[in-house]
């Protein structure tokens, strides 16, 4: 049977009320159990530990001593740390915007290909990431080094004159970030665009909608769950990245990820690392809540 997603706007999700009582609740619980148990046992419990450690003191050898102190949080108020937080948020936002744009463009392209080819293209997109991250990064370094292939090309085109240093730089670091997060942005958007009936775009076009309106009024709203997911999956993990800024950026500008890794390793100050994580976590939850309410209000206004 050929099932396509409906052309009309999605109705609000079915309320469980209609389903009959206990059996239905049991089914729901069973469906949620695997993910739920994983989250509780492998995320919430360790998280509780992290929160506990963030109030502890470290012994002189780097072990956790216990006790209760707020010093770890007080130290984080140092402007030095705030600067790192601010820089990271900016980088992550920029990366998210670029990745989402490219992710949408690629997904739209994918969804317009013949169905059999879509799977292959998806594989084609993911295959480069099966080569080890470090090997790929060193390939970039080789490419961008002075007198390397890219430099030779720009010299020939008259864009540069002689050996030029592209690496390490913040620009290189940013390109590395975009590269690393592209599939994370493409996949969720594609997955949600995939459920959209292609006839929908055609219909809109037949009704006289221009290219821009077809996208903004029809396709983008339908791809919204995927775009939201992609935004989350790009923005948040970018904050934790630490190898790219070191290898491509020369380690001169740190992201929060670098800070926390340094606290956990070189500074052997786990309690303060834990405190930094709790702050990051709180910041994220607050901004997500704000983001969520705003998105919800927007949606209600739209409908």
């Amino acid at each position, binding site marked *: 049977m050929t099932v396509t997603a409906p052309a009309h706007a999605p109705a609000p999700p079915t309320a469980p009320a209609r389903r009959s009582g206990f059996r239905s609740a049991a089914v*729901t619980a069973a469906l949620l159990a695997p993910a739920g148990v994983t989250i509780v046992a492998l*995320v919430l419990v360790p998280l509780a530990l*992290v929160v506990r450690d963030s109030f502890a003191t470290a012994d002189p050898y780097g072990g956790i001593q216990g006790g209760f102190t707020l010093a770890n949080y007080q130290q984080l108020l140092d402007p030095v740390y705030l600067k790192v937080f601010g820089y990271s948020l900016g980088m992550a936002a920029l990366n998210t915007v670029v990745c989402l744009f490219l992710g949408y463009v690629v997904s739209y*392209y994918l969804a317009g290909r013949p169905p059999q080819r879509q799977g292959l293209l998806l594989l084609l997109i993911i295959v480069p990431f099966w*080569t080890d991250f470090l090997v790929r990064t060193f*390939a970039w370094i080789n490419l961008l080094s002075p007198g390397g292939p890219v430099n030779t090309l720009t010299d020939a085109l008259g864009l540069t004159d002689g050996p030029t240093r592209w690496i390490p730089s913040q620009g290189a670091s940013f390109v590395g970030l975009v590269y690393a997060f592209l599939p994370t942005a493409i996949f969720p958007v594609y997955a949600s665009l995939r459920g959209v009936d292609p006839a929908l775009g055609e219909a809109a076009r037949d009704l006289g909608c221009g290219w821009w309106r077809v996208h903004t009024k029809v396709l983008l709203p339908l791809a919204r*769950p995927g775009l939201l997911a992609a935004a989350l999956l790009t923005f948040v993990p970018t904050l934790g990245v630490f190898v790219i800024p070191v290898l491509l950026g020369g380690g001169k500008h740190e992201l929060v990820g670098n800070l*926390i890794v340094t606290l956990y390793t070189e500074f052997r100050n786990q309690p303060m690392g834990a405190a930094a994580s709790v702050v990051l976590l709180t910041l994220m*939850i607050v901004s997500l809540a704000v983001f969520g309410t705003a998105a919800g209000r927007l949606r209600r206004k739209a409908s």
Partner: protein
Amino acid sequence: MKSAVKSLPDRATGWLARAVIVFLYVPIVVVVVLSFNGSDVTYKWAGFSTRWYGVLADDTDLLSALRISAEVGVASATLATAGGLLAAMGMARLGRRFRVAFSGGLFLPLVIPEIVLGVALLAVFGTLRADLGLTTLVLGHLVVTLPYAALIVLGAHGALDPALDEAAADLGCNAWQGFRRVTLPLLRQALVAAWLLCFTISFGNIVMSTFTSGVGTTTLPLRVYSLLKGGLTPEINALGTLLVLFTFLIVLGAGLRQMRRILVGGDRTPG
């Protein structure tokens, strides 16, 4: 089905999309070229040679690391995708408030820096006296990949019309049949996309692996990362090349099968 004349913006975005895919392969080309480097170091070309493929074939440490990574990747991607699918279906049955709470829990691991979660998980495993090894490694990767799987499947599931379930029920399908015949086929692409992304994330993971691997379970990225100290050799490039080549063969194989099907006309697509 496809309009004969494509609009200009459509063509422009099409080219941009192709350019992005090419961009993804830029470093891969370098990796492949340098794998045939006769030199001891990757950055200096010393003539064409296949010696590093020979070195790779004898490197049991690296190959066993590859095996571990493949095993862990398949196991954690499968678990994460299955868990994500069930969670998405379960969440559709929840009221709004519970749904928000549950999805909050699902992406919590994303918000905690991996090193922090890794160290904390290690402490939990230590308290439970669980021996570090394949199991702890898979559990660690499950935590990392579950949010990705869940969010992708949720996104696709959210785009489905809830009326479909009812329609299936009206047509006399029970819940299982409805799932098998309606929901699953519609979500298949999303599931495959989720699985692929999860496998890829697990296959390349360094940080979580650092803290959850145990005796005899050093993964490929861990192995490569620790080799950095002594300088990487083109051997790693050779391994990367083989992985890419191998995947291409499969893609090509699948492509040929499709071509034949289209020519013979068995499973033809309309339009």
